[in-house]
Every structure is written in structure tokens, then in C-alpha cells.
């Protein structure tokens, strides 16, 4: 392993090379991808130019152990201008593993709409004129049946959103998984790259079968039996809806409050009972957290019916549901279906529509901009029309919506209620200041960076005392440990199974010796490099704050004290400035 495939779309060339030193130093996954991106020096590179790279990266546990199911995508984000990083499940890691590739680095720009097929280290370049314009769902169907592969295939593709250069375009992976955040779809679109198909024929040997099996079975048994995974196995991430609502932490009507009066309707319980078609899994994950909802719609005088399967999770329910005050699961699934076909990041889409609705209410935009549509929270039909107009991408206002909430607020006003952090639309937690601080300071502005929301929840429950300085330190510690998990690369839902001890044993079972201290040092180095990339590419540490509106909101922990928050941001920032000096 430790082989990297470089693909140049402009010249239709590719090469494979081995770099064991890189993998020894940075493990794999997010660690090695960060170093690769850092070494490419993207400082003066336009994210949507041919030089802009796309890195797909897996780690040493992928393919070997259960729930090591993620692939890391790293790129320069066209949405934020700095570090672009998004993680996806599905089968991609397996296809790369079977192909004997630890990383794929794509640069250049195809002369016309194209897709590439990677079978082991062989790369073929195909014209994609006939599928340009197809939805992200149709593209998968078509490529699945028309492309010859040497093994289990994974299909990464963009929808019309990515083709149109929407900064919130994602890249869909297999069924119901996505490189969702920070605009990878726009980067692919800018390269005329509709899709990437990967498969491999390699048979990766298990060196020490006895030792390996012991660790495998420990992880597998924990995955199927332990309470650690039960939540994901049963209701899936939407299990969060009711508990968050109970502590006033479920974003409602563009973060106006944390209580949604119709949370029961959109709850994991109700979705499972009345709308769940089935659950599916990423390869080598016995948990199967991917929930596919079913939407039945009548047509032809209501005599005929058609059905759609639409993946749902907590974040889509928040972003397009509670945040827009959508009351019914049917209406929500219908909106999610449009988003899925277009290939947008559902979270940025919901946040942008939340901003637009409030901007409309406040008169910053009017029917002139919206071409006659009246935006109201709860009006799913109109939101559907808005999405269709965004998909058409014709008029100025709807083109602007495709650029995300930060861009729109900058242009039309309402920065104080455009709920994004570092220009990335907020995740769905109003638990308190630590959630927001994590979104702001985390390297990819994700709730999964440092899980500040979980500290908030502990404090709400009384399991932990308030202490700004300790809260910051715990978040940094958590984020750095997660760099290790994201380097392996395991799904963060399995973080309670992949303890430090299990990680060290699993690495040992595939022939990699690391001590806890070595892991800590590697994590620290990864953190420093990521932050250096962010700051070098315009993430301004001297100008950080939360969207003003959030100070008016009753969070799960109550109203935030502005002075305390500002001090925390200042202290966190100081630590990050010191961190960068370690590079």
C-alpha cells in the first residue's frame, strides 16, 4: 500500500508512486491528505482553476476492519477559500483499497465534460457529454450499468449544481452518502469532471491471521452488540431530534429558537415508523445507519402512484426541516429529493434558504429579486419552487443563492442572521457556546471537528461544570484525537469503539507500531498544518465572531454572555496562532 495515483485531466495522464515515509509520518486519511495539500502550496491557486487539486485519501485500517468506512476528500474550498475537507462513506474506501491506492490526486481540467474510470492503477478518460446535465441520481444509475469494472465499484459524481458552479455543490458517493460540505462539487464541475468511478482487483493479504481475527472480532462484536452503536442502528442520527428539542437546541426558523413545535412529526421515531423503507450500510459496516425514507406520490388523477427512496439523516432534517419550519415528513422528503438530485450540500442549502426567508421578512430582498415568490417559513411548496429556480440558475438572485449564505449576506445584507461559521453553513445544534465555538474554530467548521455540542450537553445535564478555559482545552483535545480517527480512517460514529487501545491494537494487527505519545504528536502536527493552510488561504484569525443573532437566542445552556464568548474566541485564537508556529 501507500501508493498514490496522480491524475492530470488536462493531459489525460496518470502515474502511480509509493511514499512510505509520508504514511509513516502522517498515518493516512486526513493526515496524509493534509500533508499532500500543504506541499502543493495552494496559496495563490483559485479553487476553481485547473491547478486546484482534489485529493481522495484512505488510511491503514480501511478495508481491514469494520466501520473503517470513510474516505477523506481534501481540496481548496470555493465556499470558504481555505481548507476544503469532507468525508464520505459508501464503498469508495473499499474500491480504493481493492485498487491498492491509498490516495488519488486529481489536477487539471478536461477539455470537455468527462468522467474517469480507475481500475487498479489504470485510468481511462471518457467523454461525458451525454450525461452532463443528468441528476446526481441518474448519473449513478447510468454509470453503474455502462462502465466496466474489475471489482466492487464506487461512483463519485456531481449533479447539475456542481456543473453550474454552485459553491455549495457536493459530490455524491454511491447510495445516500456524500462529500457533502465545502463545495467539492463545484471543484469537480470546474474541471469538467462529472464522475469518478473506482474499482480494484487486488486481494490484500492478512499478515498475522490469528492476531488480526482477534481484533476484528472485538470491533465487530462491539459494533453489533454494544450500546455505543445502538442509536445509529435503530433510528439513525434522527434519533437526535427529540432530545435536542427537549433542551431547546433544535434550530428552528433560521435559528430563532431551539424548540420546534412539530418536532414529533420530523422525529426519528416518526420517520422510522411511517416513512422508513429500509436501512443500508457502508461496505464493511454491520451497523447500517443509512436510512432510506420512502415518498409515495400520486399521479394521473390520483390513481397511479410513484415511489422515491430518499436518504435522510439528522442534519438534513434540521437544515431543510425544522430550520425552515417544515411540518410534514412528506414535504421534507420532497425537498430533500430535489436537493439530492441537484447535488447540493443540504446543510448549506437550508442555511441559505433560512437567511433568504428572514431577509425577505425584513425587506432586504423582495419579490423583485425572487421573481414573485413570497418566502415564508413553513411554505414548502414555495421552497420547492425556489430550489427549481436555483437549479435553473438563470436569474441573478437565484445564481447568488447558489453561492451560499455568506456570499448572499455580504451582497444583500443580513450578515447578523446568516448562520454560517467561517462562511460554512451551520450544523444543527443550538446547545450553547461550545457548539458554536467548535463550528467557528474547527478546521472544517463542522460539528464533528471537536463536538462542542457534547460539552454543552454535559453541562446542561450537570455532568460538567462551566469553565471557559477547560472547555477550550477539551475541544482541542477532542479535535486532535479525531484527526487520528480520521487518518485511519474510521467513521466517527464508531468513536466509542475505536478507543486509543483499540486503535493501537488494530494498527499493530496490520503491521504498524504506534505509541499513544506518537499518535498525539502526529495529531498535533496535522492540526498545525491544517491551520496553517487555513490561515495562509485567508482564514482571518483576527476577525472571528458568531453570527450576531445567536446572542439573542435562548440556547440549551441559556443566553450566551457576549463578553465571555469573545474572551473564549480570543483565547482559542491565541492557541491557534501558537499552533501555527509549530509548522
Amino acid at each position, binding site marked *: 500500500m501507500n501508493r498514490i495515483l496522480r491524475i492530470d485531466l488536462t493531459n489525460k495522464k496518470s502515474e502511480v508512486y509509493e511514499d512510505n515515509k509520508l504514511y509513516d509520518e502522517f498515518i493516512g486519511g486526513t493526515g496524509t491528505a493534509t500533508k499532500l495539500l500543504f506541499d502543493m502550496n495552494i496559496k495563490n491557486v483559485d479553487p476553481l482553476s485547473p491547478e486546484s487539486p482534489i485529493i481522495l485519501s484512505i488510511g491503514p485500517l480501511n*478495508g*481491514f476492519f*469494520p466501520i473503517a468506512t470513510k474516505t477523506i476528500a481534501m481540496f481548496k474550498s470555493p465556499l470558504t477559500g481555505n481548507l476544503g475537507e469532507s468525508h464520505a462513506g459508501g464503498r469508495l474506501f*473499499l474500491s480504493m*483499497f*481493492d485498487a491498492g491506492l491509498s490516495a488519488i490526486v486529481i489536477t487539471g481540467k478536461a477539455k470537455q465534460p468527462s468522467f474517469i474510470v480507475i481500475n487498479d492503477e489504470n485510468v481511462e478518460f471518457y467523454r461525458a457529454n451525454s450525461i452532463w446535465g443528468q441528476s446526481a*441520481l*441518474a448519473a*449513478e*444509475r447510468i454509470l*453503474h*450499468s455502462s462502465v466496466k469494472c474489475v*471489482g*466492487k465499484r464506487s461512483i463519485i459524481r456531481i449533479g447539475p449544481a456542481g456543473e453550474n458552479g454552485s459553491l455549495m455543490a457536493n459530490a455524491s458517493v454511491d*447510495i*445516500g452518502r456524500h462529500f457533502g460540505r465545502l463545495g467539492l462539487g463545484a471543484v469537480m464541475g470546474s474541471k469538467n469532471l462529472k464522475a469518478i468511478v473506482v474499482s480494484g*482487483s*487486488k*486481494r*490484500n*493479504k*492478512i499478515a498475522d*491471521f490469528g492476531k488480526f*481475527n482477534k481484533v*476484528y472480532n472485538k470491533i*465487530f462484536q462491539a*459494533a*453489533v452488540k454494544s450500546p455505543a452503536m445502538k442509536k445509529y442502528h435503530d433510528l439513525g442520527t434522527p434519533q437526535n431530534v427529540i432530545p435536542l428539542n427537549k433542551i431547546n437546541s433544535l434550530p428552528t426558523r433560521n435559528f430563532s429558537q431551539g424548540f420546534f413545535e412539530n418536532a414529533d412529526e420530523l422525529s426519528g421515531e416518526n420517520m422510522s415508523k411511517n416513512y422508513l*423503507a*429500509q*436501512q*443500508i*450500510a*457502508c*461496505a*464493511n*459496516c*454491520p*451497523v*447500517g445507519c*443509512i436510512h*432510506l425514507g420512502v415518498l409515495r406520490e400520486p399521479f394521473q388523477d390520483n390513481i397511479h402512484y410513484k415511489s422515491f*427512496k430518499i*436518504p435522510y439523516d439528522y442534519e438534513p432534517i434540521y437544515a431543510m426541516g425544522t430550520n425552515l419550519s417544515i411540518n410534514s415528513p412528506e414535504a421534507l422528503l420532497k425537498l430533500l429529493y430535489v436537493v439530492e438530485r441537484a447535488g447540493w450540500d443540504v446543510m448549506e442549502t437550508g442555511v441559505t434558504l433560512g437567511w433568504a426567508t428572514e431577509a425577505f421578512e425584513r425587506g432586504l430582498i423582495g419579490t423583485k429579486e425572487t421573481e414573485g415568490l413570497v418566502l415564508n417559513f413553513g411554505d414548502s411548496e414555495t421552497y420547492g419552487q425556489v430550489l427549481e429556480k436555483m437549479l435553473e440558475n438563470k436569474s441573478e438572485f437565484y445564481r447568488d443563492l447558489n453561492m451560499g449564505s455568506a456570499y448572499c449576506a455580504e451582497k444583500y445584507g443580513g450578515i447578523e442572521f446568516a448562520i454560517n461559521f467561517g462562511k460554512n453553513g451551520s450544523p444543527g445544534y443550538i446547545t450553547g457556546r461550545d457548539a458554536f465555538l467548535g463550528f467557528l474554530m474547527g478546521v472544517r467548521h463542522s460539528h464533528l471537528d471537536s463536538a462542542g455540542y457534547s460539552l454543552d450537553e454535559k453541562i446542561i445535564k450537570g455532568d460538567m461544570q462551566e469553565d471557559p478555559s477547560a472547555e477550550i482545552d477539551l475541544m482541542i483535545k477532542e479535535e486532535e484525537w479525531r484527526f487520528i480517527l480520521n487518518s485511519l480512517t474510521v467513521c466517527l460514529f464508531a468513536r466509542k469503539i475505536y478507543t486509543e487501545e483499540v486503535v493501537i491494537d488494530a494498527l499493530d494487527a496490520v503491521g504498524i507500531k504506534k505509541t499513544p505519545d506518537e499518535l498525539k504528536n502526529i495529531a498535533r502536527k496535522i492540526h498545525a498544518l491544517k491551520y496553517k493552510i487555513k490561515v495562509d488561504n485567508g482564514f482571518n484569525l483576527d476577525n472571528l465572531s458568531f453570527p450576531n443573532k445567536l446572542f439573542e437566542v435562548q440556547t440549551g445552556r441559556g443566553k450566551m454572555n457576549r463578553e465571555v464568548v469573545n474572551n473564549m474566541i480570543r483565547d482559542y485564537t491565541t492557541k491557534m496562532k501558537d499552533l501555527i508556529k509549530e509548522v
Partner: protein
Amino acid sequence: MRKVMRVVNRAQCIGCYSCMLACSRTYFHIASTKLSAMRVKNYAGVEGAFSIRICTGCLQPDCAAACPTDALTIREGGGVIFHEEKCVHCYKCVEACTLNAMQWDPIAKEPLVCHQCGICAEYCPNGVLALVEVDDE
């Protein structure tokens, strides 16, 4: 009474491949789905539709009947036993199985024969597969 493999709850399959991984791992010591003697198939564009093809241990196996060299002989209790030294790599066994249960190793050019051991079922998280007692009376 004999024990053979059955797909008992096809619609409960989540497509995790734990079964195929267990089979390849157990018999070939590889981390792969590739040398599994059974297969979970995905269908293009049908979200979450899986079809599971596994040797059901025929008493009069079509694969063995199709083998020109007796490389496949009838196993007591159902299914077949593979005699590698007799195999002429003709692929006829695979073609003979209407279930498409007989898998193929494209490098060795040999069939991958199910041992009716049930290891795949042991790793199935959702009870899709089972080693079941069959009464032929």
C-alpha cells in the same frame, strides 16, 4: 436431516458485505470480498436492492453434473467438494448454476466452492443468512 445455507430474510440485507468478507477472510486470509464463495449483488439505480446468491447445497448439483472431469463431486449433505487437481478451468460449473451461486476466482480460473460452514451467517448483522436444517423426507 442435513444442514445447508439458505437466504432466509433477503429484504433485511443492508449491503454491508460482512458475509463475503468473512468467507474470504476465513478461507483465504485476505481482507476482501473477492474470494468469497457467495455474493451480495447490488442493482444499478435501485437504492438498497440487494440480491444474495449462495450455494443452497443441492443434493443433485447441476454444477457437478456440468463438470467434465469430476473436479466437483457430490458432498454428503448437499453441495459439492472441489478437487483442484482435476479442474480444467472450463467455467462450465458457474454457467450451470442457475442461481449464479457458484463464484469464480478469475486469477486461479477456478470455482469458489461453498463449504456450507455458515461463517457468512455468523457475521450477518441482520439475520439474512442461516445454516438451516433441511428435512428431505
